[in-house]
């Protein structure tokens, strides 16, 4: 805003064409608050209108051009000056000249590539935004509108279980198993811990989900570890032959998909940390990486189909099975 404006000024704002129908999602801001933003996927068109509203109607506004940009950029917090733009599109809305009355400009960025998911982390931020600018001699008038991009995946073809025998020689031997190595964000981790040898006095056992955000390259790599969840799976002292089940629902936690070497700037990886604590507070742990991915939402499913599945969960009876068949027939037919 200019305090020495002799003459005209204007307000600029951006409105999407599908603002009424497009879904909004919550996304964390840098200071930890959650805000809602329009959700886009890779390849979707971004179209809308830029409204330039003159503050003093009647007076003309001189400018050196009006444009709108669609930007995808990575910002490292320790290096704020340099933004790494990986998507940069621009549409000129008006050639240099003047406006005498408030105007609206249409724009469309067709089938925009949005290769990465929006991410706000501890040391790095990846964001997408529209920026409308009225270019002027001394100071531009601009407005930014952030959007959120989700990257979707489908069920991986290969999703082997993780099964390992670990321990300390002649002291503690366990076999742990997790049913998959790749989990979607609303998945359930089903597993078990089997005790082969227990010569220490265990007090309890827990599973932690750890998020590791890696920024920087070469000698200046920095890892930021954050324990997202701690979930106790056993209280008390186990003996040989005991098997402890694991059932950890991921939907309750604030997770993102695994991001590997995004634009060679940062990574976000997730680990399951199995921790056993003995009576003297000594901790024995084994970390295992898992891959998290984002599943597309179910587009349409009839209510009766869902109800039939729900009833089968409890009974598994012939009646509910035939209800399921019927509902499936109805849906496809």
């Amino acid at each position, binding site marked *: 805003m200019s305090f020495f404006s002799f003459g005209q000024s204007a307000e600029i704002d951006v409105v999407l064409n599908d603002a009424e129908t497009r879904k909004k999602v919550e996304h964390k801001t840098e200071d930890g608050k959650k805000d809602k933003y329009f959700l886009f996927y890779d390849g979707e068109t971004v179209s809308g209108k830029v409204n330039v509203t003159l503050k003093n109607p009647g007076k003309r506004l001189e400018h050196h051009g009006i444009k709108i940009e669609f930007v995808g950029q990575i910002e490292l917090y320790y290096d704020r000056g340099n933004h790494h733009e990986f998507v940069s599109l621009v549409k000129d809305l008006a050639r240099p000249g003047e406006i005498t009355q408030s105007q609206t400009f249409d724009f469309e960025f067709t089938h925009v590539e949005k290769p990465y998911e929006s991410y706000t982390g501890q040391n790095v931020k990846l964001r997408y935004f529209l920026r409308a600018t009225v270019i002027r001699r001394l100071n531009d008038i601009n407005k930014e509108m952030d959007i959120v991009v989700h990257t979707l995946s489908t*069920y991986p073809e290969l999703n082997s279980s993780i099964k*390992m*025998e*670990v*321990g*300390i*020689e*002649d*002291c*503690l*031997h366990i076999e742990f*198993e997790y*049913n998959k190595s790749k989990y979607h964000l609303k*998945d*359930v981790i*089903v*597993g*078990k811990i*089997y005790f082969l*040898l*227990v*010569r*220490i*006095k265990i007090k309890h056992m827990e599973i932690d989900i750890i998020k590791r955000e890696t920024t920087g390259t070469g000698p200046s790599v920095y890892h930021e570890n954050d324990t997202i969840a701690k979930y106790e799976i056993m209280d008390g*002292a186990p*003996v*040989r*032959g*005991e*098997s402890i*089940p694991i*059932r950890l629902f991921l939907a309750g936690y604030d997770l993102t998909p695994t991001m590997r070497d995004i634009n060679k700037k940062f990574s976000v990886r997730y680990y399951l940390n199995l921790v056993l604590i*003995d*009576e*003297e*507070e*000594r*901790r*024995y*742990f*084994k970390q295992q990486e898992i891959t998290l991915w984002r599943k597309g939402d*179910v587009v349409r*499913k009839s209510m009766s189909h*869902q109800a039939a*599945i*729900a009833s089968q*969960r409890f009974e598994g009876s012939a009646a509910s099975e035939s209800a399921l068949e019927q509902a499936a027939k109805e849906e496809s037919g």
Partner: protein
Amino acid sequence: MTDPVVADTRRLNSKPQDLTDAYGPPSNFLEIDVYDPQIVGVGRNRYTTYEVRMRTNLPIFKLKDSCVRRRYSDFEWLKNELERDSKIVVPPLPGKALKRQLPFRGDEGLFEEAFIEERRVGLEQFINRIAGHPLAQNERCLHMFLQEETIDRNYIPGKVRKNRYTCACSMYIYFYITLIQS
């Protein structure tokens, strides 16, 4: 392809537990008692000794039941040896109580009953914490302290068994062990 709306959360299959394992004695029995303080010596050369009795079924200890007499400075020796040779953060001993060794005190000084009891409790806690540590169990000094009648201060420090960090069999991957200081 049917995408199940309800996730499959059934438990994974596991071997049923053997009844002898379930109801047998646990393989982690280790109890050390520090008791029966006795004052040894005369005049200004007196000191207190404690009985240190260990009962265990851990195979790493040669004797399943052992009984020795130790004094405070023996515990200090053990702490120093472990701090030097092992990578553990050794728990603290009860205080040295130098003030109690000064003359002209109103009370019995080092041989005050309440003080001896307080020290006994601290030594018992110390030895139980350290003897249960898998890395401390590797050290010869611990075994000598607990199970040999006298401590040979000229002994050759070393490990009792192969370092527990290394892998004898390629099937095992080792834990990191960390001791949280309380």
